[in-house]
């Protein structure tokens, strides 16, 4: 999947950096540790800014190209920050067959952003995801950890309103 580099300025804290160093130290000498470290780093920062990737490369003594290569290969790793409310529409087969594409259209028009973008106030971000496995509830979308299932496009506005207060 193509990945856009973020234009949002990096604002990591010293506390986050300390956590990151602790994480790297924990995996020191372990075979194949880069993935777990990137996963942990994303947990700390919410995404993988290039500054963080550089720090990991230096600390682990691996080329930045390798870190960047892994970070861009897997769709779980994101280089852009997410909105306060991350909306994700499942476009797995079961959801797609049941009209998830229409949910996406509706969200794009209501939020005024496209799939993969973040609103200017950083309140909402919108993404399509692979099957999240809740096929019994298709079509499904998630807002952060909250799952909404058996949806129709006219239910979208009501869901967004809950977060728009």
């Amino acid at each position, binding site marked *: *999947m193509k990945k856009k580099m973020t234009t949002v300025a990096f604002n990591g804290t010293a506390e986050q950096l300390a956590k990151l160093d602790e994480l790297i130290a924990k995996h020191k000498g372990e*075979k*194949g*540790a*880069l*993935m*777990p470290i*990137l*996963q942990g780093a994303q947990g700390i920062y919410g995404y993988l800014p290039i500054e963080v990737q550089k720090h990991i490369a230096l600390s682990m003594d691996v080329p930045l190209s*390798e870190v960047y*290569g*892994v970070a861009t*290969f*897997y*769709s*779980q*790793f994101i280089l852009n920050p997410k909105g306060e409310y991350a909306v994700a529409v499942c476009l*797995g*087969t*079961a959801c*797609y*067959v*049941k009209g998830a594409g*229409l949910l996406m*259209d509706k969200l794009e*028009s209501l939020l005024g952003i496209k799939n993969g973008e973040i609103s200017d106030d950083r309140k909402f971000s919108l993404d399509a995801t*692979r*099957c*999240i*496995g*809740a*096929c*019994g*509830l*298709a079509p*499904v979308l998630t807002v952060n950890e909250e*799952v909404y*299932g058996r949806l*129709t*496009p*006219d239910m979208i506005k009501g869901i967004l309103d809950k977060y728009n207060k």
Partner: protein
Amino acid sequence: MIKNVAELTAIRDTYANKIHFRKHDAGAEVSDGNIKKHVLICGGTGCTSSKSVQIKAKMEEAIKEAGIQDEVQVVLTGCFGLCALGPIVIVYPEGTFYSRIEIKDAETIVKEHLVGGNPVKSLLYSETVKGDEILSLNETAFYKKQKRVALRNCGVVDPECINEYIGTNGYMALAKVVTEMTPDEVINTILESGIRGRGGGGFPTGRKWMFAAAQPKGQKYVVCNGDEGDPGAFMDRSILEGDPHALIEAMTIAGYAIGANQGYVYVRAEYPIAVNRLQAAIDAARREGLLGKNIFGTDFEFDMQIRLGAGAFVCGEETALLTSIEGNRGEPRPRPPFPAVKGLFGKPTIINNVETYANIPQIILKGADWFKSMGTEKSKGTKVFALGGKITNTGLVEIPMGTTLREVVEEIGGGIPNGKKFKAAQTGGPSGGCIPASKYDVEIDYDNLIAQGSMMGSGGLIVMDEDTCMVDLAKFFLEFTVDESCGKCAPCRIGTVRLLEILTKITEGNGEMEDLDKLEELANYIKSASLCGLGQTAPNPVLSTLANFRDEYIAHIVDKKCPAGVCKNLFTYKIDLDKCMGCGLCAKQCPADAISRTDYVAEGHKLASMQIDASKCVKCGACLPSCKKFNAIYKG
């Protein structure tokens, strides 16, 4: 700490009754000491998404209030399979099946059923209510034809309680293997059973083990492929969530058979519940000495850890998965050398998927002949399918190989909703193909599916009705493979993009007849020249829809029509002037102001009919549901 087989047997005997209590048919007398009722609540991903954990909490609260906490055991289990009806609650010993429960229903069930002794009929799954009689879940069409081997404990045991697993004869197979059998005997049993890999190609599992065992002694690995990436497939997740100890036991057995002391389970990070339960199970097995050194007092040692995937479909391909565990971009490697010779970190490795492993302990305990007695000549045992798409009983089913597609869809799956007709079933995900209605009676096994231009894959089974456009479907899968192609080899990286371009052209109404030949030619090149399974199977959705639904492609190209009314460029919304009552609801829904009133009043109607201006219409379809009552809006 379980030090020997006798200690394991003692635990088994204590807990077996609990399990028996839940497996027994309605009304039979089994006692579990003071406990009179077991309340099982589904804690699978589907039901958790609709708040089953909160329902459990509410129920426990109500049970305490009623003062019956010593008589009722509440268990959060793995998936029952019938996800369409979630959240599901089952009460034993009766086997009463409550469906689509809400938090507010918890108190009612406790008061009326658990205290009062009267099942709450209004909350029961309608199929289990026959007049005054209440049937147990095993008598419903959904469960009756199933044969649960890999899923035998899902929805029966508490996945976070190792003793309940032991109560189902859990870890007895491991005990038997390390204390009574030689590694060769284990491999022979697996070979003899005829089990084939449940994750994709269907390679005989025993042969993989034999090759790895034949490598010189030294560091070897056992790997589990839990990177279930096919959209619509969730059988591995259900086993990890519902019966994680079965996987641990099976991998340990595999370790003994090939001489490995370390296992890795590669699981999708998108499966947080599965990951947590598996980790808890690994910790519990370590505490009990079932992982680690001196297992059952022997010299055999084995341990395992979880590695999380990060959302790359190609990592379901075995060599790519190994590269990913090594911490790299998950790109596949050429085979040979096969992983059994040179796998993880360059060492001999066996790699099987979750469902395959889940069968292993049963084969050891019940014998190869028992396993062979199920299935068809070349496909033994059972297979789990995830039913999805346009089908009433969305969920997880396990059937003996050789069951027909019609039985799965019509009987177990409850048919297609809204009176629509079966058009095709898609199996094998993006690597598979479509089985059309004319092959509805095909017996499902590895070889029959391949003969139909599809494949078993990991077991996703998506049902389509007449509203699905097969060209659009092929395009959907190609979009997926284009996204997920790792880019290492050109046939897949470039070829799939070209396929997608041609398909897009056709769905937009710009196709030409010669495009069909181009699609076929290119598809065959990609199949024969790609490096790994992803690329070699990526053209299957195109080839199988072309073979079975060529007329739909021709309709798109020659008539410029999409028969299913899906491809937006190839149909318009119209209003049947004589059916239209002129209520104007549709005009209110239209975001593009494309609907206006005509001056035509149909016979017997009071208001003038509405019409759609095709030049303004954006084909969002918002008007369609507003006319459900009169059905005057149609695609044409």
